[in-house]
C-alpha cells in the first residue's frame, strides 16, 4: 500500500504541474487564439517522443510576496524529443504561469536544456511566450537573460538554434531570438520589440499599435528580424518540421540525405528567362527547374525580396541557394538583401551546406538613403561571407553580372570553386548603355547625329563585352554551359567537391562588417 500511495502522490503532483497556471489562465490563453505551451510541444514533436525535465523546479524568490506564490515549472517547460526522427532540445515558456515571466529558476531551466543541446550536438528549439522579466526577482531575472544570451552565442555555429515567437517577446527577451539562426512568427500572435508602444508614445509622441510596431508582418517584411511568417501556429510548426529536414544536427555533421528526385518537367529552364536583359522573370522558377522534385524551401520570403535564399536538394543532398530576383528591384543588391544573403551564407558555411549562387543583377541600388544608412558596410557583408565560406561554392551566371554586383555574387575572385555562365551571360563593368555613354562621351557629343552614334556605340560595346567569353578567356568563368545542362553541371560539381578542404590563416575570429 505504501508504494501505491507514493505513486498516487507522484501522479497528483504531475497533474498539478501539467495544468500550468490553472484552468482559468489556460482558458484565457486559448481565448487569445493561442495554444498552451504543452500543446505546442506536442504539436511540434513526433508523437510520444517528448521527455520533460525539471517539472518540479521551484523558484526561491522571497520578496513582494513571492514566497507564497507557487509557480508550476516556474513558467517554462523543458525537455527533449524528436522531429521527423531528428533529436532536438526544446523549451516552451508557459504564459499561463505568471505571464511566462522569466525568473532565475525559469532561466536556469532554459540554460540547462541549452547546455544539453550543445553537449549532445542537437538543435535547440525555443518557444517564446512571455511578458518579460519577473520584476519581483530584480537583477536575478536580468542575470537569467544574460546567461541565455551567452549560451546562444556559444551555441552559434555549433548547433542550429530555432526561435518560435508565439506571444509577446519584448525588451531584453527579444535578444535571444536575435542571436539564433531562424525565427518563426505567427500572424496576430507574435509581438517583438525592444521598447513597447507606451514608452514610444511617452518619449517620442509617436502613436503606434503593438501589431504595427512589432507584429509578425512587420518582423518578416520590414525589419527582417524574423525568417518565417505563418497564419497559424500549426502552419508555423509545419514550417519548422520542413526546415529540420534540410539542416544537420550540428556543425560536424551533414544534413540527412533524401532519395534523389528529378525536377518537374513544367519548369522548363530554356524558356523562363526573357531575351532582353531588362525584362524580369521569377528566379524561383529557375531554382525549381534544377532542384529535386522542383522543391524549394524559401527563407525570408517577405524581406528584401530582391534576393532569394533557401534550401533545396540536388540528388538528395541539401544545398543552400542564393539568387538575385529580377522580379523585384531588378535584383539589385542593397542594404537589406546583403544582410539577408550574408547571414544565410554564414549559416550554410557553419553547417556544411554547399552553396549555389545564381547571378542576374545590374549592380548595387543607387540612393541617398542607401548611402546614408551604410550600404558600404552592409554590402561588404556579402563579400565577407562568401570569401569566408569554405563549403563547396558553385556560381552560375545566368544573364547580367555587372560591376560590384558581379564580384559580390560569389565570383571566382571571392573563392568560388566552379563558375559557370550561360551563353546569354553579360559579364562586364556595367550594362552597354551606361558603358557606351561613358567611353564614347565626346564622340557622341560631337557627332552630327548623337542619338544614332549612341545607338551604334551601344551595339559596338554589346558585341564586344556583353557576353561570357571575355571572362571565360581569362579563366574567371570555368565553362560556358547550355542552360539545360545546368543541373548536370551542379550534380557533377557537388559530387566531386565532397572532400573539399581549404586551409585558411589561423585566427581567433574574423571581424566581419556587422
Amino acid at each position: 500500500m505504501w508504494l501505491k500511495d507514493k505513486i498516487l502522490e507522484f501522479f497528483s503532483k504531475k497533474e498539478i504541474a501539467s495544468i500550468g497556471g490553472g484552468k482559468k489562465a489556460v482558458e484565457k490563453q486559448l481565448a487569445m487564439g493561442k495554444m498552451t505551451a504543452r500543446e505546442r510541444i506536442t504539436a511540434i514533436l513526433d508523437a510520444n517522443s517528448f521527455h520533460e525535465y525539471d517539472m518540479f523546479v521551484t523558484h526561491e524568490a522571497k520578496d513582494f510576496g513571492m514566497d507564497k506564490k507557487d509557480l508550476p515549472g516556474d513558467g517554462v517547460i523543458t525537455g527533449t524529443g524528436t522531429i521527423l526522427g531528428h533529436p532536438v532540445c526544446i523549451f516552451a515558456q508557459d504564459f499561463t504561469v505568471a505571464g511566462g515571466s522569466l525568473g532565475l529558476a525559469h532561466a536556469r531551466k532554459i540554460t540547462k536544456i541549452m547546455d544539453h543541446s550543445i553537449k549532445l550536438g542537437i538543435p535547440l528549439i525555443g518557444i517564446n511566450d512571455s511578458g518579460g522579466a519577473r520584476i519581483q526577482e530584480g537583477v536575478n531575472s536580468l542575470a537569467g537573460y544574460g546567461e541565455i544570451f551567452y549560451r546562444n552565442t556559444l551555441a552559434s555555429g555549433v548547433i542550429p538554434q530555432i526561435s518560435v515567437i508565439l506571444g509577446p517577446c519584448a525588451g531584453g527577451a527579444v535578444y535571444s531570438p536575435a542571436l539564433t539562426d531562424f525565427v518563426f512568427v505567427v500572424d496576430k500572435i507574435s509581438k517583438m520589440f525592444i521598447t513597447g508602444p507606451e514608452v514610444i508614445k511617452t518619449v517620442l509622441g509617436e502613436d503606434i499599435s503593438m501589431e504595427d510596431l512589432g507584429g509578425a508582418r512587420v518582423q518578416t517584411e520590414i525589419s527582417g528580424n524574423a525568417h518565417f511568417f505563418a497564419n497559424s501556429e500549426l502552419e508555423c510548426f509545419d514550417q519548422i518540421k520542413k526546415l529540420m529536414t534540410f539542416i544537420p544536427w550540428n556543425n560536424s555533421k551533414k544534413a540527412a540525405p533524401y532519395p534523389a528526385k528529378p525536377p518537374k518537367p513544367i519548369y522548363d529552364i530554356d524558356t523562363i528567362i526573357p531575351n532582353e536583359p531588362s525584362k524580369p522573370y521569377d528566379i524561383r522558377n529557375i531554382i525549381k527547374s534544377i532542384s529535386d522534385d522542383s522543391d524549394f524551401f524559401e527563407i525570408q520570403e517577405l524581406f528584401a525580396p530582391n534576393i532569394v535564399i533557401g534550401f533545396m536538394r540536388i540528388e538528395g543532398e541539401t544545398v543552400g541557394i542564393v539568387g538575385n530576383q529580377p522580379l523585384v528591384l531588378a535584383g539589385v543588391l542593397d542594404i537589406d538583401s546583403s544582410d539577408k544573403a550574408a547571414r544565410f551564407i554564414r549559416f550554410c558555411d557553419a553547417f556544411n551546406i554547399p552553396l549555389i549562387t545564381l547571378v542576374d543583377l545590374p549592380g548595387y541600388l543607387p540612393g541617398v538613403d542607401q548611402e546614408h544608412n551604410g550600404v558600404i558596410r552592409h554590402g561588404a557583408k556579402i563579400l565577407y561571407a562568401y570569401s569566408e565560406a569554405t563549403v563547396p561554392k558553385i556560381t552560375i551566371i545566368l544573364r547580367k553580372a555587372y560591376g560590384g554586383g558581379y564580384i559580390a555574387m560569389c565570383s571566382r575572385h571571392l573563392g568560388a570553386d566552379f563558375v559557370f555562365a550561360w551563353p546569354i551571360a553579360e559579364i562586364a563593368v556595367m550594362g552597354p548603355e551606361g558603358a557606351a555613354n561613358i567611353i564614347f562621351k565626346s564622340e557622341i557629343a560631337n557627332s552630327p547625329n548623337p542619338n544614332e552614334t549612341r545607338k551604334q556605340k551601344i551595339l559596338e560595346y554589346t558585341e564586344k563585352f556583353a557576353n561570357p567569353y571575355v571572362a571565360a578567356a581569362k579563366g574567371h568563368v570555368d565553362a560556358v554551359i547550355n542552360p539545360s545542362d545546368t543541373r548536370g553541371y551542379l550534380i557533377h560539381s557537388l559530387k566531386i567537391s565532397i572532400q573539399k578542404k581549404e586551409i585558411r590563416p589561423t585566427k581567433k575570429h574574423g571581424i566581419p562588417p556587422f
Partner: protein
Amino acid sequence: MKNKELNKLLIDDTNYETNFPAKFLRRKKYVKADPKKVFAFIPGVITNIKIKPGQTIGQNESIIILEAMKMKNDLLSPLKGKVKDIFISEGQMVTKGQLLIEFE
C-alpha cells in the same frame, strides 16, 4: 508577385522592368537641409522663446528652450541673421520634426 504594371528602375542608363516592394516605396526621400529653418529634434514643450520676429541675432545664440524628457534643451541659432517667423508659442507641445523658427 504579378508581372503586371511593372515599374522601371534606371541603373547605369538602362531601364529595368521590375516591381517595387512596399518598403522601397516608403523609403525617406532625401531633403536638403535648410540652415534657415529650425526644427524640433525631439517632441516636447516650448518653455521659453528668447527671440522676436525681425530681431537680428548671432550664430550659436540661445533662441528657444525645448523641454523634453525632463531635460531643458537649449536650441541655438544655426546662423547669424534676422528672424523671419516664429511658428510656435510658449507652452506649446511640439512633435518631432515640427518647424519652429525660420530665418530670413
